């Protein structure tokens, strides 16, 4: 009987020792897989900045999703508080609202990175913070994991069984309160994401420093081995360094381009928004429509009174014309001098009517068309015809040398040249031409 007891005891001890060794192996492998050392129950120590970056990325993805959900809940709350909804409609909105809150609880429970619980502070393995030991000389870099309280998310507890929410959007007033509540929560999430981003960037520089140092150390080792190889190694390392710098330049250039692109896109969006509210807002702009179409085109400014007008078009404007008196083109000689039409000045070198006609068509072709019309063999008239019609076709002539007066071209506009000064001539011509 005694022997049998001893035998059972030995088996028991053996089983315990096997179990113990399994536990030790499990702890060892879990530590190795995360490249982490568990210092105590409330902290974990990582050794490589890359590990920490990956952890932060994983955390960021979870927080981004939570933020998306909160944004959606905020939209639902705003809809419920502002829209013209029935009680039934609001209950339906609330259904989605509560379901999304449940999803936040689930995400919080499931968020982990290689065995490290990221958000669930109720979990027995929750560590509260993650540390990074960069080297033996410097202090630990500690990142405190976000510890979200249930009341900040509108739930009584994080447990889904049973799920108990204290925020809903069933009435406009309560939905309004929920908006303010969600704003605070969103701010908290944005703060945590900013904290992650900041440390992530810091880790990038730590990684860079480590890379540079390790390369330098390698080079020092090589220096001690062989002098001949030393120069080659130095050359290689320099080439490698240059290629690394070029790689970095490429990356920074890409970043700069992306930032410029975002800035341009923001600018475009702002410009589009300005059309909707600025002083030239599209809401003020008017449009002219005619029935039947095709007879009138036009623009209306912002102050035009809305309404319908009846219009009958009796006659269209024609090009403005001014003609000389009947003259003999072979005998008339036009003196040389400066002539200005619509503020465009040109010098005529003198000649007959044909030369003058050619001169006008060459230099003032955008303003007028000059023609010599033959009445018979010895008689002709010079006609100046504006290119534009109506008001736009007014021709302003400055003729200090009286070139045109030598052709009696002002006769048709009935101005006594001797009595009027130049400005008056110009004005009268304009007026007369316009009336014509």
């Amino acid at each position, binding site marked *: 009987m005694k022997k049998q007891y001893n035998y059972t005891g030995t088996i028991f001890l053996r089983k315990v020792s096997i179990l113990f060794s399994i536990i030790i192996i499990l702890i060892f492998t879990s530590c190795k897989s995360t490249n982490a050392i568990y210092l105590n129950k409330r902290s974990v120590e990582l050794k490589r900045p890359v590990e920490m970056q990956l952890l932060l990325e994983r955390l960021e993805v979870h927080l981004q999703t939570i933020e998306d959900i909160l944004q959606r809940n905020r*939209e639902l709350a705003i809809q419920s508080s502002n829209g013209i909804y029935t009680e039934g409609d609001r209950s339906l909105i609330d259904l989605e609202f509560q379901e999304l809150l449940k999803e936040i609880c689930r995400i919080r429970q499931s968020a982990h990175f290689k065995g490290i619980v990221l958000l669930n502070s109720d979990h027995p393995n929750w560590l509260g913070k993650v540390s990074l030991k960069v080297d033996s000389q410097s202090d630990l870099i500690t990142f405190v994991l976000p510890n979200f309280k249930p009341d900040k998310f509108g739930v009584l507890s994080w447990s889904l069984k049973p799920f108990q929410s204290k925020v809903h959007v069933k009435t406009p007033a309560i939905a309004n309160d929920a908006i303010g509540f969600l704003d605070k929560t969103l701010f908290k999430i944005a703060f945590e994401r900013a904290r992650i981003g900041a440390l992530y960037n810091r880790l990038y520089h730590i990684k860079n420093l480590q890379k540079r140092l390790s390369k330098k150390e390698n080079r020092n080792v090589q220096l001690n081995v062989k002098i001949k190889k030393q120069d080659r190694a130095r*050359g290689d390392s320099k080439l490698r360094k240059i290629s690394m710098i070029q790689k970095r330049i490429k990356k*920074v250039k890409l970043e700069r381009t992306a930032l410029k692109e*975002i800035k341009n896109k923001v600018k475009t969006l702002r410009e589009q928004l300005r059309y909707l509210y600025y002083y030239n807002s599209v809401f003020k702009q008017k449009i*002219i429509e*005619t029935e039947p179409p095709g007879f009138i085109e036009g623009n209306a*400014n912002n102050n035009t009174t809305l309404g319908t007008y009846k219009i009958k078009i009796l006659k269209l404007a024609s090009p403005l014309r001014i003609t000389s008196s009947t003259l003999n083109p072979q005998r008339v000689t036009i003196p040389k001098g400066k002539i200005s039409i619509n503020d465009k000045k040109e010098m005529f070198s003198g000649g007959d009517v044909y030369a003058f006609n050619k001169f006008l068509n060459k230099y003032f072709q955008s303003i007028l068309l000059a023609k010599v019309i033959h009445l018979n063999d010895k008689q002709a008239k010079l006609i100046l015809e504006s290119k534009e019609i109506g008001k736009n076709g007014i021709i302003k002539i400055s003729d200090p040398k009286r070139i045109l007066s030598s052709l009696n071209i002002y006769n048709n506009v009935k101005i006594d040249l001797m009595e009027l000064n130049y400005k008056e001539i110009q004005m009268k011509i304009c007026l007369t031409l316009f009336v014509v």
Partner: protein
Amino acid sequence: MSLTFKKVTDKEVNLTVNNNTKLVKEKINSFVKAYNDLLKFSENVIKPALDVQENGDEKKGILPLNSSVANLIHGLRIHTSNAYPTAKNNSIKILRMIGIDQGSTSYGDLNGYLLVEEKKLDEVLSKKRNLVGQFFAFDSNNDRRLDTGFAFKMAQFLRTYTHYRGVFQTQIKGRYNEIRRLENTAYRIKKSTD
């Protein structure tokens, strides 16, 4: 009003001066396009490595976890979902009421992107054009200056990012300086090798 007469008419022609609703709709659509474009680009740019694409590839954004871009996205979504104070008789207070959806129960997968419901927008613009205008910009205290409204507030928010000393310009300048510094270093190394 300026008119150009094209042809002589036999009888009277009806000329009507109307509000340019077509242009309003066009500009609203352009705004939605610009908004979605910016949101999509920003989200892709800050994508962390863990965000796995549908085809299974891992594609990291160019500026992973950049907090300025994250804040921009956050602000954009806040402004598009907000309600804005308007005149007492104006029932239009959120984007959804003019037919710009952010994901109702039927469009749950929009995820912050905007979608124009053409039919609803047409209806609202034909019946409540002025109220829509008030929603975009409104003078709430009658001092003849616009002080609230969706477009007004959002443009104000975006100013921080487009300003010549704004968030992005500072970062662009920082990158520019870094490139110059790196190029100098590379040049010095190259020179010492020669």
